């Protein structure tokens, strides 16, 4: 086990973590504003991946153009789906008890997963990487898969973009105000329910982006939604529900943790997120960056 190998693992782990962050930040953002944990977030990510697959069959494989088209087209599609869900379903349960919210989004998971199964079937799918990102790059004498490095770069871009949006724009101010003082925001004449819808759509857009990115990273099947939502739970539980910064930290911990646990434990490394989640939930249930509720 050389230093290069460890570096290799680290890059892989971090790129896994960045992908996770893109999805989990959406979940966390939505929870922060809407106070509803969206169990269906993983399903939306999965739909994003399968839609990306379907769109890619219409385009030339391997060209950079078609990859860019996927990146531009698919996330908005998921955001539109999110819009429909928010307006028709989620909006009705904001003021209901937790139990009903949980059951509603859970039912949505079952529905969406079955829709995917009926529409796309259970075969594993993937999309060829664009030629530009298909090979490997030399970093410090190491041949790293370009695509992983690419994801590693997209993650920070998304993180900075979210930060700029939340802290440097008027819409971001409104989103943050909706997190802390929704009622005051309403009395100030802001249409809070529109802010909520927009936030939900943003969360879904991020899920869709994750879906596009994953479909060229690994092959996708019907299980990825559930797998990812539990990893996302682990991330937001570790980082604190509603905190985007926490989601970044949690994602990196989970991503690198799983990768490095593979060295001594092999396949059992998959247990790592659960262990981390259990530990954090017991020691600090509101997460490392979150605030205690109630």
């Amino acid at each position: 086990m050389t230093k290069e190998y460890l570096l290799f693992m680290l890059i892989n782990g971090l790129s896994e973590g960045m992908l996770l962050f893109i999805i989990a930040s959406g979940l966390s953002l939505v929870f922060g504003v809407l106070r509803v944990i969206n169990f269906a977030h993983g399903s939306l990510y999965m739909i994003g991946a399968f839609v990306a697959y379907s769109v890619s069959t219409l385009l030339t494989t391997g060209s950079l153009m078609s990859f860019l088209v996927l990146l531009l087209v698919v996330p908005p599609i998921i955001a539109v789906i999110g819009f429909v869900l928010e307006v028709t379903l989620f909006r009705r349960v904001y003021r209901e008890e937790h139990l009903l919210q949980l059951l509603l989004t859970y039912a949505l998971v079952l529905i969406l997963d079955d829709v995917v199964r009926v529409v796309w079937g259970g075969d594993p799918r993937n999309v060829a990487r664009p030629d530009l990102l298909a090979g490997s790059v030399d970093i410090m004498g190491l041949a790293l898969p370009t695509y992983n490095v690419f994801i590693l770069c997209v993650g920070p871009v998304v993180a900075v973009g979210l930060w700029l949006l939340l802290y440097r724009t008027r819409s971001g101010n409104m989103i943050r105000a909706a997190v802390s003082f929704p009622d005051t925001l309403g009395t100030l004449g802001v249409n809070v329910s529109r802010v909520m819808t927009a936030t939900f759509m943003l969360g879904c857009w991020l899920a869709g982006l994750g879906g596009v990115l994953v479909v060229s990273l690994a092959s996708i099947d019907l299980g990825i939604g559930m797998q990812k939502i539990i990893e996302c739970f682990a991330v937001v539980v570790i980082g604190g529900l509603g905190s985007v910064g926490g989601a970044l930290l949690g994602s990196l911990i989970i991503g690198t943790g799983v990768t490095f646990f593979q060295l001594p434990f092999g396949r059992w490394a998959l247990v790592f997120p659960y262990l981390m989640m259990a530990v954090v939930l017991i020691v600090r249930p509101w997460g490392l960056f979150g605030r205690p509720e109630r």
Partner: protein
Amino acid sequence: MDNQAVNQSQSRNVNHAGTLVIVAGLVLLPFILGQLGRTGEFWIWVTTEMIITGLFAMSLNLILGFGGMVSFGHAAFFGVGAYTVALLMKKAGVPLFLALLAAPVTAAIAAAIIGWFCVRLIGLYFAILTLAFSQLLYMIVFQWYTFTGGDDGIHGIPRPEFLGPTSYYLLCLAIFLVCFLLMRMIVNSAFGLSIRTIRENMERAKFIGINVRRYQWINFIIAGAFAGLAGGLLCELNRFAQTEFLHWSKSAEPILGSLVGGMYSLAGPAVGSAVLMFLKIILQQIHRSMVEVWAIVLCSILVVVVLFAPGGLASLYEKLFRKSDS
């Protein structure tokens, strides 16, 4: 006042008579179905599974309806029970009745460990952690090929000679009735009332000196034990155990049943899940492809129930009834 008491005791008598008729009907059912040849045998099998899923749903409802804790990982204990029976009978050659006794015990142990962590959390976090633990267990069973058979599951579990479809149905029915009475005792006991108090107002329950965590933990263990028994019974009925038994979608079944049947009553979840299963089988008979969209239809119903009739179909009926009354 007297009049009311008389009325009450009368309605209770009617209730008792009704229960007796239903039980008698359930006991006679396989003999009637037995006359129908192969279709009858199929329906005996279906009704047996209905009874088992009913037990499973009722066990979940101890924590969901009476305890007010949403668990998305109840299949974990169902699966533990099923694998206990499968492993004991297939690999250790233990007789069925001993294996069926062991199923709730191992499930209770699993529930004690998982529950110890979970009851430290409330609401949302509780739901997440139960889901995570059940997925963890699912993955362990899935990966541990040498012990659990992984993806293949465990097949060819022996069935004692004397247990035909009818007698197995009767065995399940008897166990179901005993469990039903046990659960009724639990729910109406001081313990059960405390659990309901916790559901209604946790803070107050704490103030009057109820050890909330311990009560919830014990409740979680009891529910897990009953679920384990149900899992063991289904394992013997199918004569195999597979990872599906632990899958998160299995955890959804009793939740759906409870919601449809009404989660604030004891028998509601059993009725609800039996109704759902009946619908599924009927749809299957009409057209095979209907099964494909079954979950979509079912969950759309669930969404409607959640949005408009949180107390289940029973409450919807009540609502309509009361409206027309006033």
